[in-house]
């Protein structure tokens, strides 16, 4: 069985005062009315991986109001090497802390517990909005395959910020520029290679029989092969702009619906959603093939846009992979096709506090 979350306790986390859940590794369907606290549970799980979670919120936004006394999550994972205990919390005004197996550690260490992928309604407009969101989606996907990707992105970003400062201060020390450009080129080449490898892995693990239309995703990157020389040539223009105009930080992700040869942005809302679902399923399959264990999937309101046939296909795909997939929806009928293959939880809100109960058929 894949690595999975076996216990989760939310304390003073958003609408949850104290919510305790026990999981057995099957997919998990959570239903309840709007505002009952479903997404909050998925956000809590996403904080068991490095970063700011699926809402990209600050620790202070997550604390239960009006008390605002700090929040805490406690989770147990079932792994091949036995149970692992992860705790993360934040005191008011402080950054978030992490302990794994009773030892204080960094957020990055959470990455070693269980790979995690998510899809949220906020990503529905991914293909319509600015390149930044697509780059973030691409880099999260890439990071799931290449753990060094985060360090490369951080190094590139730091060298670029240093160079931008030189540009804005009007510094004309060619050696200093060259030293920073050499590092942007080195990290930039790794970033581009990692991104291309990730897209190739997605293409390799696409399921041609799936009812989800597959989009062919390509990296739209104008960064030249010899980035160091190109940056050196571009210094005057960059100085006028006050920032670096070329490089992988300007890359974009393009998606074209393979069957129709149509740009994702031109496709219907449901079709655009389907591209993301097929991408995340391909990502999960590729990771399972590489590591022997399926990632944990967080699919917020994924059932809402899908017709019954596609819902059933999604559930079959998730179950076939053996992934612990957390899904939310407003009513239990959205998960009927899962039957006994999933655990079911009902959430309701009472006096501003989320109430949770497991449902047995």
């Amino acid at each position, binding site marked *: 069985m894949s690595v999975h979350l076996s216990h989760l306790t939310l304390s003073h986390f958003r609408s949850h005062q104290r919510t305790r859940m026990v999981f057995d590794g099957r997919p998990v369907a959570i239903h309840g009315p709007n505002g009952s606290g479903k997404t909050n549970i998925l956000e809590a799980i996403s904080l068991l991986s490095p970063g700011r979670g699926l809402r990209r919120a600050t620790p202070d936004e997550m604390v239960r109001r009006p008390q605002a006394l700090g929040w805490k999550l406690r989770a147990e994972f079932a792994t091949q090497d036995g149970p692992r205990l992860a705790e993360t919390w934040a005191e008011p005004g402080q950054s978030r802390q992490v302990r794994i197996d009773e030892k204080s550690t960094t957020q990055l260490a959470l990455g070693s517990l269980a790979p995690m992928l998510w899809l949220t309604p906020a990503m529905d407009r991914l293909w319509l909005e600015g390149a930044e969101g697509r780059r973030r989606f691409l880099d999260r996907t890439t990071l799931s395959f290449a753990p060094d990707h985060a360090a490369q992105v951080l190094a590139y970003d730091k060298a670029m910020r240093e160079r931008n400062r030189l540009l804005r201060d009007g510094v004309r*020390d060619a050696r200093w520029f060259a*030293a920073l450009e050499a590092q942007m080129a080195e990290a930039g080449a790794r970033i581009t290679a990692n991104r291309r490898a990730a897209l190739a892995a997605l293409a390799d693990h696409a399921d041609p029989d799936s009812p989800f239309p597959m989009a062919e995703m390509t990296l739209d990157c104008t960064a030249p092969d010899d980035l160091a020389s190109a940056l050196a040539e571009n210094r005057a223009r960059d100085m006028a702009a006050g920032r670096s105009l070329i490089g992988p930080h300007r890359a974009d992700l393009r998606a074209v619906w393979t069957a129709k040869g149509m740009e994702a942005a031109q496709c219907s809302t449901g079709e655009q959603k389907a591209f993301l679902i097929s991408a995340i399923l391909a990502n999960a399959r590729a990771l399972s093939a590489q590591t022997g264990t399926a990632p944990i999937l967080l699919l917020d309101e994924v059932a809402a846009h899908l017709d019954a046939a596609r819902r059933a296909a999604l559930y079959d795909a998730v179950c076939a992979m053996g992934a612990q997939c957390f899904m939310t929806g407003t009513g239990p009928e959205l998960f009927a096709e899962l039957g006994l293959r999933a655990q079911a939880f009902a959430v309701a809100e009472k006096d501003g506090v989320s109430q949770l109960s497991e449902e047995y058929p």
Partner: protein
Amino acid sequence: MADARDEIDALIGQFARLPGLGPRSARRMVLHLLQRRDQALRPLVMALDRVAQTAQPCQRCGNIATAPICDICADPRRATGEICVVEDVADLWAMERGQAFTGRYHVLGGTLSALDAIGPDDLRIPQLLDRIASEGVREVILALGATVDGQTTAHYIAEALEDSGVTLSALAQGVPVGGELDFLDDGTIGAALRARRAF
């Protein structure tokens, strides 16, 4: 009596602000010193006073010395034609503890950082160029951190030395990201030095 207590509290406060110490260890140290006035406290006062009067940066390499030229620069056996460039004195001490390097050092006093407003003129780079000519240096070993700032500084020095005719090398990979030399154990430093590569 209240005055003595205040002064001792102030002393504990000063110790507690030192790196690696907290209020608990500071209280234990001060109590230890007070209880051994002659064996511990007075010798410490004298040692501190001597160092306060004599400690100064070595005019050549930037090491902390008790004379204008430090022991390493003054020792003719260390004129091997190799200079190891480090970020700060803590890194020099770490290299010396490793006992793997027999040449001389050059302490930059920081790393290049536009965001922190540290430019080439704030580091001892011109002095390094002077020494290469005057000391007959054949090899410059860059022992700078694997951080972006450390590597920017390494690239900068490499460019500046391009026409000087010296061999340039860098400590072998394996220095962790953000892990400055001072935190590496002595054996690791020796291994990184032996496996140094052309830069």
